[in-house]
């Protein structure tokens, strides 16, 4: 195994993923995931050339100030050297990591290699969503015939999970999956009735989805989509988005923060007080939607470090849609100004001051360390590493 610090010298922070002149404006670079490993942040990037449709992936190691120390192009069929470098970049203490690159899963650690092999063996034409826990992995994609499929596996033969309960359609789309333990959570966008969240137990031969939250947690179309899900100490945190701006917006479109507890019940952390079958719901944090700020925004990113949780609220900056049935299901429209909030107990939240540009681009990933928040987003250019670092004040 090559020591990671030596790798920084070998790869020298150079961009070895791109060669030759490219039109910077034709490439959208996006941080797909970040994790804190061995004193550095490891980021995976996806670069899409909108002119050619070409997609490349990159593994980048960032120092605590956000400077790129090393990068590696991720190939769908890595040779042994590439694989060794990738494993070394992740480090021996890194988690079991899989990276999604087009229709392929790439193993970033030796432990993940068998899992990647099993899922790639399914021969899916594309993989849209990936969720992984210590023991389980789930992928949502399409068969070669275009049929949506969802598989779960712990390393054995993948089990296809029945999607009929989710009632997917042109307007209802599965857009977020997450695993806690052996429970898979699946969130379905619905811009008309509000999102639904289902769960099912993996490893159960007759795995079937059951509703956990319905009709946008009874906030209906104002909670059209789950824009972020993250396991935390108390359960599964859920951030919402109204999805697109109707021509005559009224009321409070601010996003909410919800918690599905380990017992299966749910709680309103920040959001609109309401009557519900579960009882009178008041926000546990006393924060209203949008963390107290009116407007169409989404909770785009969430991260945690120890018991601390940080969320990114990002404003809508897309165009208006007359008819919600035809709303483009594109969370990239939330690419305006960002606000960051920090909590250690989900009840008391404080806003983190920062100097992020107001046109930062859609936040795609957050990572939190002891001292700072790494904000990964979309950016233009074939070589950019669209990551900003925000220091956590005392």
């Amino acid at each position, binding site marked *: 195994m090559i020591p990671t610090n030596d790798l920084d010298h070998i790869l020298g922070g150079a961009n070895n993923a791109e060669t030759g002149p490219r039109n910077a404006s034709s490439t959208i670079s996006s941080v797909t995931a970040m994790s804190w490993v061995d004193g550095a942040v490891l980021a995976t990037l996806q670069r899409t050339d909108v002119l050619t449709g070409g997609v490349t992936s990159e593994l980048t190691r960032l120092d605590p100030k956000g400077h790129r120390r090393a990068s590696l192009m991720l190939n769908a069929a890595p040779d042994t050297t590439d694989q060794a470098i990738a494993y070394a970049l992740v480090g021996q203490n890194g988690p079991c990591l899989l990276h999604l690159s087009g229709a392929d899963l790439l193993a970033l650690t030796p432990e993940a290699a068998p899992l990647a092999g099993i899922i790639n063996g399914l021969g899916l034409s594309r993989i849209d969503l990936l969720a992984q826990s210590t023991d389980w992995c789930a992928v949502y994609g399409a068969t070669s015939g275009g049929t949506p499929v969802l598989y779960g596996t712990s390393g054995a033969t993948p089990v296809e999970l029945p999607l009929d309960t989710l009632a997917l359609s042109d307007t209802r789309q599965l857009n977020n999956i997450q695993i806690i333990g052996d429970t898979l959570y699946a969130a379905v966008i*619905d*811009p*008309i*009735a*509000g999102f639904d969240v289902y769960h099912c137990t993996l490893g159960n031969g007759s795995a079937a989805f059951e509703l956990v939250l319905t*009709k946008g947690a*009874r906030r*209906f*179309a*104002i909670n059209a989509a789950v824009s972020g899900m993250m396991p935390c100490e108390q359960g599964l945190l859920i951030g919402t988005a109204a999805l697109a701006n*109707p*021509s*005559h917006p*009224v*009321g*409070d479109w601010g996003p909410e923060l919800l918690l599905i507890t380990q017992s299966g019940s749910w709680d309103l952390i920040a959001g*609109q*007080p*309401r*009557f*519900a*079958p579960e*009882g*009178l719901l008041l*926000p546990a944090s006393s924060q*209203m939607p949008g963390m107290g700020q*009116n407007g169409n925004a989404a909770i785009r990113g969430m991260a945690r470090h120890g018991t601390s949780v940080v969320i990114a609220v990002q404003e809508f900056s897309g165009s208006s849609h*007359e*008819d*919600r049935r035809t709303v483009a299901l594109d969370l990239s429209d939330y690419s305006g100004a960002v606000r960051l909030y920090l909590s250690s107990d989900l009840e008391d939240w404080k806003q983190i001051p920062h100097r992020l540009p107001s046109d930062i681009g859609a936040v795609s990933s957050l990572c939190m360390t002891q001292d700072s928040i790494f904000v990964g987003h979309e950016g233009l250019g074939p070589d950019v590493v669209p990551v900003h670092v925000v220091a956590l004040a005392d």
Partner: protein
Amino acid sequence: MREPLFILCPGGSFSSIVCAVIGQHPQAFGLSEVHLFVQETIGGLLDLDTPFFGRAGASSGLKRAVAELVFGAQTRDTIDAAERWLQERRKMTGGQLFRELCDLAGDRMIVDKSPTNPKRERIEAIYREFPNAKFLHLSRHPRPTCRSRHRANASGRHRGVADTDYEAMWLDRHHNITEFSSRLDPAQFMFLQGEWFLEFPEIALPQICEWLELSTTPEAIAQMMKPELSPFAVLGPDNAKYGNNPGFIENPHLRIGKTRPETIDGPLEWVTERDAYFSDQTRGLAYQLGYDT
């Protein structure tokens, strides 16, 4: 004085039954339709109540409420006394008189559901006068709401309403209310879908009481389930016969159960001259209020 509750919704949105139910709580008093924010002064409202050129019966609800709260009963004589009582207060604003009614109710929370309230300028007037009041946004699916208004029109209770006005009214009133809500303290405002309330009153009522800081004892909830006992669930004396929704007076019981399924799609049955459908704005707001079909 306990701060009042204003139920805000367009006409035909179950407001009579919801007001009577909440008003039957021992710590509350549900009013008839007092329309206190329609005119600048009480004199203006009384003058409006004239046949032919005015709105006959416009002050009936107010007279009945005064008769009940000030004189303890609704008879021909107490309605006359209520009229005299109101004439003495001709120069008062609606807000001032509303405050006097709240004082008369003592520890009970006054509940107002006048369907004339959700106009923008009237909501503002209410909020200016009662910045700490509670506001309940009540909704009903746009199709039955419009149908109900259309039937009322056809039966002669409302005049000069064009076929397209029903939808416009539903949209305008709910738009005003939702816009207003975003300025309020979170503890002041709640949304209640009328259909859900009628299907699950046993779930909704304790929550409503909790929000309003009213007792949630089984005895109190049981009393709320009897809106027919409201003093405004019956016709008034000849000199103030209505002052409340005639449909509610005809059948003032709480009819628990799932309401008839409705649809956002499909032609508007009250528009007869052409095919008409709900506009995108109406649909969008309906989705926001939980009417996805």
